[in-house]
């Protein structure tokens, strides 16, 4: 294909008829053999690594699977499943948690339906993949439960969620504004479901329920405190700023367990003489709330720094008072920016709720340790099974939340504004 040379000897470009198959991307698939060669054995060092790691992983995988399916004695989990999930919750009031689950399923369905209105990203598989670990856990729990009631109630929850989704898909888009309030109301409704009408006080809540309750209560209560601290840290009043900085740095410099101890052992000393001494759960919530507030404050502070200064200036220019500027203009933008970080903080907090075993509360980890002391299981060394089970439950919840947070981040990056 030689192009004609002009008088100066520079080649010219002549239009060449496009070859066959032009306009289509070339075949990119590597054959399995090529893939293995490129990814696993591309160099002597890599080949050695593949062999070593492959052998180790095969051995570890074999031992683990053998433990799970062959040698593990899971009877202790079967017998104690309710303990793991709700601790010492009165068994004849178990309808309350189920009511709560149905309420949450419905509202979640509505939320999903509403957000699906703005178009779905990715294929069916990419959208469902994050829910797989949660569904697997659900299946495991149902298999362990071995009775029909949980199965039927779970199916009912899915049905309710689907109904919520249908409703959500039909609601006008405007209602998205109200969803945060709806979620808050849901939390209250769940709380009422547990405690209303001669309900079960939270001192009887245990197991996974207790971890969830502590986490949600702490994040909800610490939120306003954290926002105030963040605003105070950025205040132009040195006195306020100093006090806020002192609090934040103090809390962030000490381990959570010291605060839990303070709450469990010393909170009573801080209350005036006549006042009733609070229960253990309240003490834990106070400690967790004060702890989380400092971290929320730092997150919100980062969000506030991300709001361009021009926003405040524009607000001042139209005559808004400083308070109005903060709460109407700056804070909404700041909070929207930090939603992923807040979810991360909640995941962290949820993991930290496992510390309450140290102050004597019966959370999931505590149940895992305590049930091995039961008469029929004592001394059989079943801690491995119970701890693996507790780890598995924690892992599924945290992993699912962190995946959801990543997707949320991506979605917010695209953004509606």
């Amino acid at each position, binding site marked *: 294909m030689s192009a004609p040379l*002009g008088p*100066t000897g520079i*080649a010219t*470009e*002549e239009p060449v008829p496009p070859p066959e198959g032009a*306009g289509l991307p*070339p075949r990119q698939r590597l054959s399995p053999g090529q893939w293995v060669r490129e990814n696993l054995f591309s160099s002597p060092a890599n080949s050695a690594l593949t062999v070593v790691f492959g052998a180790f992983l095969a051995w570890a995988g074999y031992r683990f699977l053998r433990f799970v399916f062959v040698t593990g004695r899971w009877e202790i989990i079967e017998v104690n499943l309710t303990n793991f999930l709700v601790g010492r919750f009165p068994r004849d009031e178990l309808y309350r948690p189920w009511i709560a689950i149905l309420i949450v399923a419905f509202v979640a369905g509505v939320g999903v339906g509403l957000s699906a209105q703005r178009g779905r990203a990715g294929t069916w598989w990419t959208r469902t993949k994050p829910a797989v670990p949660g569904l697997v856990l659900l299946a495991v729990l149902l298999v362990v439960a071995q009775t029909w009631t949980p199965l039927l109630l779970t199916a009912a929850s899915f049905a309710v969620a689907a109904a919520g989704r249908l409703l959500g898909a039909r609601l006008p888009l405007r209602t998205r504004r109200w969803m945060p309030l709806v979620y808050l109301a849901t939390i209250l409704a769940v709380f009422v479901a547990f405690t209303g009408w001669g309900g079960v006080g939270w001192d009887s809540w245990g197991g996974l329920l207790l971890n969830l309750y502590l986490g949600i209560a702490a994040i909800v209560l610490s939120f306003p405190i954290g926002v105030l601290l963040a605003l105070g840290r950025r205040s132009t009043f040195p006195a306020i700023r100093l006090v806020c900085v002192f609090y934040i740095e103090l809390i962030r410099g000490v381990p959570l367990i010291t605060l839990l101890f303070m709450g469990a052992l010393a909170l009573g000393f801080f209350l005036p003489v006549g006042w009733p001494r609070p229960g253990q759960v309240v003490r834990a919530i106070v400690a967790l709330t004060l702890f989380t507030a400092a971290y929320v404050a730092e997150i919100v502070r980062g969000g506030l720094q991300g709001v361009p200064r021009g926003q405040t200036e524009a607000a001042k220019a139209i005559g808004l008072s400083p308070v109005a500027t903060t709460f109407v203009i700056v804070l909404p933008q700041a909070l929207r920016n930090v939603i992923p970080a807040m979810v991360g903080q909640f995941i962290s907090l949820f993991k930290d709720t496992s510390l309450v075993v140290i102050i004597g509360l019966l959370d999931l980890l505590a149940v895992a340790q305590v049930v091995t002391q039961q008469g029929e299981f004592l001394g059989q060394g079943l801690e491995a099974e119970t701890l693996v089970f507790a780890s598995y439950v924690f892992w599924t919840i945290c992993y699912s939340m962190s995946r959801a947070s990543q997707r949320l981040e991506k979605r917010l990056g695209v953004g509606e504004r």
Partner: protein
Amino acid sequence: MSEPSAMGNGGDSDAAVRVDADATRATGETVISCEGVDKFFGDFQALKDINLRVGRQEVVVIIGPSGSGKSTLIRCINRLEKHDRGRIVVDGVEMSDDVRNIQEIRREVGMVFQQFNLFPHMTVLDNVTLGPRLVRRWNKKKAEELGMQMLERVKIPEQAHKYPGQLSGGQQQRVAIARALAMQPKVMLFDEPTSALDPEMISEVLDAMKELARSGMTMIVVTHEMGFAREVADRVVFMADGQIVEVGTPQHFFENPQEERTKLFLSQIL
């Protein structure tokens, strides 16, 4: 209707040939040759059947709307992007998956980026001498001598011991040019070198590039600076939608464009 004297072969062919009597820079030897080059990003075709030859000491300016594939094309030339079909040959070495070829081509092709991409943790002089010392294995003295020469060429020798973060945008880009020149390349590629600069700093960079062109460097420049194209280019290439639409001398291009697409683009920017 006056025809520019450069019109040798008549005005209705797709390609025009530079017949200028002032044919000082054209030596006829092809340094870069692209034949039938296609490039896909997933299903999107960024380059469609690109055929381009660049001769030694020639200055080719590529213009076009954003998304036309101009940056992709020059990034394929030094393998920052991998072309999917066709051949790219640089100074007799074909661009392929062979690591040795790639390295050889990269040694002979210098690139200046829109975002400068200076190494922030090294001084200006270290930025410039890193390539010669590590790749060409020169000793420190020789490398620094050459480095200072290059910095003088772009007129900022006094900044040699500062860090990139301490320089203005225009100075940083000139350091980037010096860094590329320090490898003594046969070809210099410029990917929108002035697009990230404040207006008052554009001219200092363009001046450096003009001096480079006058000294006989083979250059391919992707830019929006039409004044530069008019003044310095031997050939102007207009790309749109991944294809080369029109090629010509600056006179042909700006005063007598042939294709509708070219006319549309020029009307929007001039």
